[in-house]
């Protein structure tokens, strides 16, 4: 079984990526990077990452979230985060990245915020 499974949903022009598994150095980080690259290549620039089922993330995974954020911004798009677990929220607080990302607990509110 893959370290990280990414399932894509569409809500209008917003792409929701449901992430399930671990985002750690190696396979998990690469899977996220490749998916973001592909979405940008397809012109999908409004991306909501749903981390509700991400049980574990390391500094490499956090770095991949940052890289995704900057890659999407560079293309004139927006990337936001949904359903952070307490542990991931703590890690983003430690790294002061809660000041960088738009974070939501409710999918409807997150989707509305794009427009």
């Amino acid at each position, binding site marked *: 079984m893959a370290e990280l499974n990414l399932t894509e949903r569409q809500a209008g022009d917003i792409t929701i990526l449901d992430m399930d598994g671990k985002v*750690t*150095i*190696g396979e998990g980080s690469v899977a996220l990077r490749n998916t973001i690259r592909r979405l940008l290549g397809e012109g999908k620039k409004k991306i909501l990452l749903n981390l509700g089922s991400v049980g574990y993330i*390391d*500094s490499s995974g956090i*770095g991949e979230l940052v890289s995704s*954020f900057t890659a999407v911004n560079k293309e004139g798009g927006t990337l936001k985060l949904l359903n952070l677990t307490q542990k991931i929220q703590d890690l983003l607080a*430690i*790294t002061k990245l809660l*000041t960088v990302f738009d974070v939501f607990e409710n999918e409807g509110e997150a989707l509305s915020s794009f427009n």
Partner: protein
Amino acid sequence: MKTDELYRQTVGKKEITFSISSKIEAIDEAVQKATAFASDAGFGDDALFGIDMAVREALANAVKHGNKLDETKNVEITLINLDRGMEITIRDFGKGFDVSEVPDPTNPENLLKASGRGILFMHNFVDKVEWQQHAEGGMIVKMTKNC
């Protein structure tokens, strides 16, 4: 290797030393071994999470930045069950680095960098972290987690 086998290798031991080769795929098993050892030493879930994070970051640094993914070089791990905690020592065989020169990833100018947060996590999840150059080459990081 299955978790129960890893556990049998660590249970009841006061100290264990083992090596992994310098590849990303080897990190997970070494982390599992360290947490099995810590669990046997009596650490609770929160502390085990911290040990998992700190060991994973230290191993990633050793494999990627220390040994530069050179699979001919090993990373050595020593776990010691102290009376009131655990000591974790990780040695690579790279050129070493000056930890004081590592940029603070929480500085505003570094926030959007893709890497450089591992040392911050190590400091955050264990009680003490020390780096030193090994006399015969390579870098040693020693971490202490109190019970």
